[in-house]
């Protein structure tokens, strides 16, 4: 699946997108796998309360099942308008 990062999450990780092979059952499981990659991932995912997640471009939550999801995005709370 594609894992996308926006705003300071993208800056902390250092790139906007990863292509990930995973069997993670939930968003939280995927986060654990990403955290284990490198320090910069652990730093980006240190505080999940500061993050929001979208699964296949729909706002979701960290306990959501990933199922057949093709795209997961992590970002801070949105500031439009």
């Amino acid at each position: 699946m594609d894992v996308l990062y926006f705003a300071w999450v993208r800056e902390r990780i250092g790139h906007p997108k990863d292509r990930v092979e995973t069997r993670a059952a939930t968003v939280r499981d995927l986060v654990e796998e990403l955290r284990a990659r490198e320090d910069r991932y652990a730093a980006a995912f240190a505080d999940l309360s500061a993050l929001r997640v979208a699964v296949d471009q729909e706002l979701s939550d960290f306990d959501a099942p990933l199922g057949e999801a093709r795209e997961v995005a992590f970002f801070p709370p949105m500031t439009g308008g």
Partner: protein
Amino acid sequence: MDIRVQQEPFDLGAEANAFAARQAGMGAVVTFTGIVRDLEGDLDTMEIEHYPGMTEKALAEIADEAARRWRIGDALILHRYGRLKADDLIMMVATASRHRADAFQAAEFLMDYLKSRAPFWKKEVTDAGEGWVAARDEDEDALGRW
């Protein structure tokens, strides 16, 4: 419904006139415009990032929800991304209805929802450095009134 996410500037007067002109049987048009503020007098640029694909879908869903809740004949959401300067227009919404109450309320609803449910992020670049604009609790709380 007219949803546009674009880098280019827009002409508020031309957009408002075109929106009003294409309404039939609508007695009221309400518009709102957001403008880049320079509160401390040191803003160099405001950079707006968004999530292409999800942004358009999220805005369309918000507009559809407004149309379910109020009797509006039409709505426009136009939001820019990229590098903006102080006093640049960031975004606008317009709503049309037979009577003004629906257009006013739908426009406020659109604004409240797109502030914290549409995937945009603002970064301020100033003489002192740069930083992402933090989401405000008041903006999240504002959703509670709908």
